[in-house]
């Protein structure tokens, strides 16, 4: 049985088949990338995996459990952590508290112990603090632990969000466009950080990305979605050379609904292209 698998997932919104019989597997300690043009169904698949979207048919299996019908908070407790495309921190809370919320499910206290500050509440707080201190240290956020999350620049907010997900002690971490809106140098740091986090916490990653060069660099295995169907999958080199994939990405140029760069950027330009914009597959292949 695979560590994590999506089996024959279909999602139908009224007349629209957003996902059509999609399969995807993540093995232990593997980084899997999910790419595809806008509207390909990446987010729908991601939501199905994290428990926000119930599939019309198909199965989601994780670590020996069938989690197809499990709500999001149960999946989190089983060990599926996630971040969001548009960062969803708790802006009025400090960096430390944001990460501490990740410890929620393991804190053994409740309304009465918390309201009366009984020992249980203190113990839970103390145990969580150890976890949070370590995560702050690993992410290099210790010096800003008291700042309000809403006041931080986006790059740091993304780190805090990763920290919050780490605090749930995930076995599989889902990253939804973790590089969108942050600078090229920060992307480089993030890649290094993710690799060290994987070793340290025995994580597997499922990464949805616009930044194809990043996916090619980071991932062991890549799935390409297009119009709700799995167009291709394989090691980065295989996917990159797959004519159907190139077709899907270049095909966007003709699609009036989704204006892509009309001109094929040179490798240099592609490197400098701001992250979050979709560089052409061919451009990043150098």
């Amino acid at each position, binding site marked *: 049985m695979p560590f994590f698998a999506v089996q024959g997932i279909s999602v139908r919104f009224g007349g629209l088949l957003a996902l059509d019989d999609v399969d995807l597997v993540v093995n232990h300690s593997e980084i899997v990338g999910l790419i595809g043009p806008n509207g390909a169904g990446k987010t729908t698949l991601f939501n199905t995996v994290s428990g926000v979207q119930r599939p019309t048919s198909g199965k989601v299996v994780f670590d020996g459990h069938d989690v197809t019908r499990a709500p999001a*908070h149960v999946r989190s407790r089983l060990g599926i952590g996630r971040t969001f495309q548009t960062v*969803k921190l*708790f802006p009025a809370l400090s960096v430390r508290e944001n990460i*501490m*919320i990740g410890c929620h499910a393991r804190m053994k*206290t409740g*309304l009465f112990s918390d*309201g009366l500050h009984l020992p249980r509440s203190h113990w839970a707080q103390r145990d969580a603090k150890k976890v949070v201190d370590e995560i702050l240290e690993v992410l290099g956020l210790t010096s800003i632990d008291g700042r309000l999350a809403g006041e931080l620049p986006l790059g740091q907010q993304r780190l805090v969000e990763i920290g919050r997900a780490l605090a749930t002690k995930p076995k599989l971490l889902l990253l939804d466009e973790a590089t969108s809106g942050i600078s090229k140098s920060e992307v480089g740091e993030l890649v290094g950080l993710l690799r060290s986090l994987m070793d340290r916490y025995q994580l597997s990653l499922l990464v949805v990305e616009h930044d194809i060069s990043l996916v090619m660099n980071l991932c062991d295995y890549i799935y390409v979605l297009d119009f709700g169907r799995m167009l291709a999958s394989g090691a980065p080199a295989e996917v990159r050379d797959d004519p159907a994939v190139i077709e899907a990405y270049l095909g966007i140029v003709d699609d009036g609904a989704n204006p892509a760069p009309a001109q094929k950027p040179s490798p240099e330009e592609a490197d400098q292209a701001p992250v979050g914009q979709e560089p052409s597959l061919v451009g990043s292949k150098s």
Partner: protein
Amino acid sequence: MVIDQQAIDRDVARMRSALVLVGIGCLVLLPLVLNAINKPSYLTASINAVIFAMAGISLVVLVGYVGQVSLAQFAFMGIGALVVSRVAPVVGFWPALPIAGLAAVPIGLMAALPALRLRGIYLAIATLGLSQVVEASILVNQNIVGGTLIHLDPPSFLGQAFNASIQSRTTLYFVDLAIVAAAAVFTLALRHRKTGLAFTAVRDSELAASSVGINVAKYKLVAFALSSFYAGIAGGMYMVLSPDVQPRFFDALTGSVPLLIVLVVGGVTSIGGAILASFLFALAPILLPQGLDAALTSLNLKQALKSINLADLTFALFGVLLLRGLVTNQDGLVGMLDRNLRKLAARRQTRALTAGPGEPAPAEG
């Protein structure tokens, strides 16, 4: 010149605690001052304010902490009042008071059910509906109430029955204030612990909350349970002040809606705001200067405005404050105060810095 944000934060925190202490001092001294100037009617209004503040705290938990709106608070209070009136003759008033709070919890959980699916205005309407159902089926039901009025024989405290005397009213004020203080302390104690953090998470993003393992539905139910418990207690407290209460007093449109407005004016996220606004709301009608009356007379408007009483005028004033507040500062009077403290702290630091390096900062007030 470097602005030290942390120093500003520290300064703001210091001023904030000073203000809280001043506020507590005012609350404690208020009845003594009122007695000294011989204004018993103000004392009754102050007790009303304290009870209103209790209801306010019940709503802060919902609106401010968990982001759920409710127009059923006065229905919870009505249940509390009714239970006290029926149970106190059997077990005595003081044991009946927590029972009243507990009795309101099932109704609170019923109000939470729509909150699991609805938000904002739809939730408000659903809780309004629940409030009307509770009023129509329970509070005006003479078989349950045992008459047209909800009645309670004055309970006694330390061997003395509560009555309308100044001494008794003063005691009642402090007893009620102690109950509100207990509720405030319990609620504030939650804030930075697991429960309070989960509340905030649910308020800010249910999606993010569930992604870290928070059972969003559970915490909405917990918040409604706590809120209705407080409101039930507030209803029981009201019975001591006013031994015969019209069930219509607990109507949503004349109770819960004004409560929500007052709370928004004071600052929905803050218990201090709820207490502050409750006192403004209860005391403004009698504290509005007599000069207003004189001014109206001199402007020959007295005749035209004769039908308007000061209570209506206060409410109109709160309406204006609400509109202004919603447009300019959504965190109410307390939020406004807080921003001014921050400005003041920043100014003080600038002054300290421009006074020259090496010189000691001006003494903190």
